[in-house]
């Protein structure tokens, strides 16, 4: 004991705190400078390149590529549909995580696949397939408008229509309100699974930046953010309980719709999805039920919230679709996708928790009607989701 006291007296606290950091610094310098384990690396480098963005213009293709592997990659030649092709590149030597731009003059044909192969210095071929070549929409006034309209069609209008269930819900008996709350939870549970699945898929595409980590940060951040927001609203008594929950649901759904817009926008931009009537119809049906979910907690309210609140709820839940479509169409990258989908998943999980908690305060056991409502929510989302796939 005496020696410990003596030591702490001799070294100020900050020295002790810094010492491990200094040692880590020295260790890093030694590792980088002397490379003592360099010989342990297998000789063939692991070459990996991610295709982050492909832009097709008339007779030309531009690729944004990033080295997402552990070793440097040098691009030597480019194959287009199994033929060596002239290309221009900003920087053919890509260090770890470095990104560059590669341009090809190629007379691609509408709707046909184009396979681009990067041949590296060591002879490795890294392929990327454009499934159906199509002009990449440019961010001009008309396409921005079209994407916004897309967001309005699949996000804003359906949610707004769904909100119109409120008058009916307001007059419904308590047990039916519970039924629709359970329906909402079922619906959100479906969206949660859907969002997690898509987010994890994007996370694998964003391996360079540890997509799973990005997804986790997004989702946990969203949960914590919404918890903080809820307690803030509670302290301020900013709104009635029902309205508060409605806003939380709207926010969760809004974040989900941001991801939905992102997915649709980027798929259309990449030529992977045809924007057909069925797709829009599917999304419309799918998202109308989201409006119902938002107004469900308002069913038990004593007085009708002002119309402004309905406009606000609709905007919070629907408008992010527009933003998502823009981001997806013009600036999509799997890394941001993983973050966004993480945020959406976290938000939905948090909202499910909030609604579930509120339903429990009713002190009613899980009735058959509640269970049926939950299942109904799942099934409706499943069925309307089929339209989107078609």
């Amino acid at each position: 004991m005496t020696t410990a006291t003596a030591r702490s007296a001799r070294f100020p606290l900050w020295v002790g705190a810094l010492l491990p950091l200094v040692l880590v610094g020295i260790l890093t310098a030694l590792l980088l400078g002397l490379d003592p384990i360099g010989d342990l690396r297998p000789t063939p480098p692991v070459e990996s390149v991610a295709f982050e963005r492909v832009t097709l213009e008339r007779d030309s293709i531009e690729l944004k590529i990033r080295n997402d592997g552990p070793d440097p990659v040098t691009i030597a030649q480019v194959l287009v549909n199994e033929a060596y092709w002239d290309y221009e590149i900003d920087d053919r030597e890509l260090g770890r995580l470095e990104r560059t731009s590669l341009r090809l003059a190629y007379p691609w044909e509408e709707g046909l696949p184009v396979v681009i192969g990067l041949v590296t210095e060591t002879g490795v071929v890294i392929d990327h397939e454009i499934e159906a070549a199509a002009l990449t929409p440019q961010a001009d006034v008309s396409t921005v408008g079209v994407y916004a309209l897309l967001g309005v069609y699949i996000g804003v209008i359906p949610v707004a229509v769904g909100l119109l269930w409120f008058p009916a819900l307001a007059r419904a008996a308590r047990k039916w309100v519970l039924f629709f709350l359970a329906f909402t939870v079922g619906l959100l549970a479906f969206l949660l699974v859907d969002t997690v699945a898509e987010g994890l898929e994007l996370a694998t595409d964003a391996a360079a930046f540890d997509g799973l980590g990005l997804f986790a940060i997004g989702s946990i951040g969203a949960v914590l953010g919404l918890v903080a927001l809820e307690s803030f609203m509670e302290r301020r008594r900013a709104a009635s309980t029902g309205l508060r929950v409605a806003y939380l649901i709207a926010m969760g759904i809004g974040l989900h719709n941001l991801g939905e817009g992102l997915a649709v926008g980027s798929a259309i931009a990449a030529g992977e999805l045809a924007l057909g009537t069925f797709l829009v119809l599917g999304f419309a049906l799918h998202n109308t039920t989201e409006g119902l979910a938002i107004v469900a907690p308002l069913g038990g309210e004593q007085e009708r919230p002002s119309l402004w609140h309905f406009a606000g709820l609709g905007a919070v839940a629907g408008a992010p679709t527009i933003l998502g479509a823009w981001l997806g169409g013009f600036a999509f990258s799997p890394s941001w996708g993983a973050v966004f989908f993480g945020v959406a998943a976290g938000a939905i999980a948090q909202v499910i928790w909030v609604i579930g908690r509120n339903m429990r305060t009713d002190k009613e056991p899980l009735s058959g009607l509640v269970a049926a409502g939950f299942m109904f929510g799942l099934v409706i989302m499943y069925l309307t989701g089929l339209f989107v796939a078609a």
Partner: protein
Amino acid sequence: MGSLDRRRFLKRFGIAGALGGAAAVTHAVVPHTHQNGGIALAQDDGHDATKRPEMHGGHMVVGEVDHARNGFSPYEILTDFDGGEVSTDTRGRTVREYEFVAVNKEIEVAPGVFFPAWTYNGRVPGPTIRATEGDRIRIQLVNTTEHPHSIHFHGFHTSGMDGVPGQGEALAGETFTYDFIAAPFGTHLYHCHTLPLVQHIHRGLYGAFIVDPKQGRPEANEMVMVMNGFDTNFDGENEIYAINSIAFAYAVKPIEIERNALQRAHVLNITEFDPINSIHIHANFFDLYRTGTSLEPDEFTDTISMGQAERHMIEFTYPEAGHFMFHAHQTEFVDLGWLSAFEVK
């Protein structure tokens, strides 16, 4: 939008660097850009003709192979016939002695693309052995690699000189001397016959073995064309096809020949993974001497297909000066490097 469309139109038809106006009209249409639509990069209005022959337009490799670093050049291999160290034995027979060193070497097979080759004397294809029927050939194989290697000759020899495992193989670090009489005359082949065979051949251990008839042949400009391929990513398919190893080498810089002069090409197929390769010459026909084993042509044609290890001698003459392509008529090989040209002067 009008000017933009016009600009695209002009580019498409190869009118460089002009946006309408009389200058563009007098500039005329560059004819060869039609071959691939004459696509130019948006930034590339000037169309730098020094970069590569325009005849191939955008459809080519980018950059240049460093032949000096490779230690061999396809332009030299084309006409590099090696008679060996010549002496006469007690019976008055011509003896040709060679030293082949099996050595591992990374070679550049397309600009910037490196292949871990196994070579004889540091080059792919190996030296072209040139002898006359009846000459005695002595080749010492020095194996400096960590794998066993051999040289298996297509020709007559005794069983012990066959160059297969157990019969004339040089184990790692060892040597073996092949000794046989060159026969029959013809365009022949040698290659490593150590197992696994695909690996030992595909990695670069092969070359031409040309035996002339005793009575000789008419004077001609002779060339060796070894049709080969490289599976650079080791997936069982070639990423590069060529003659004499370097993709597009004779398209980037055509083979210069004289008009009205007899051309004789020894064409060998040692392509792995694809059962058949071929050669087709443009605007002309050739006399085909199958395996080069006769003095009279077997056929008059402009395209000949060859299975693996098949090889023929072809003779032709170009009466007019000009630029003439020749290439495999497995068209996918063309796109991957087996595209060449003669510049007839």
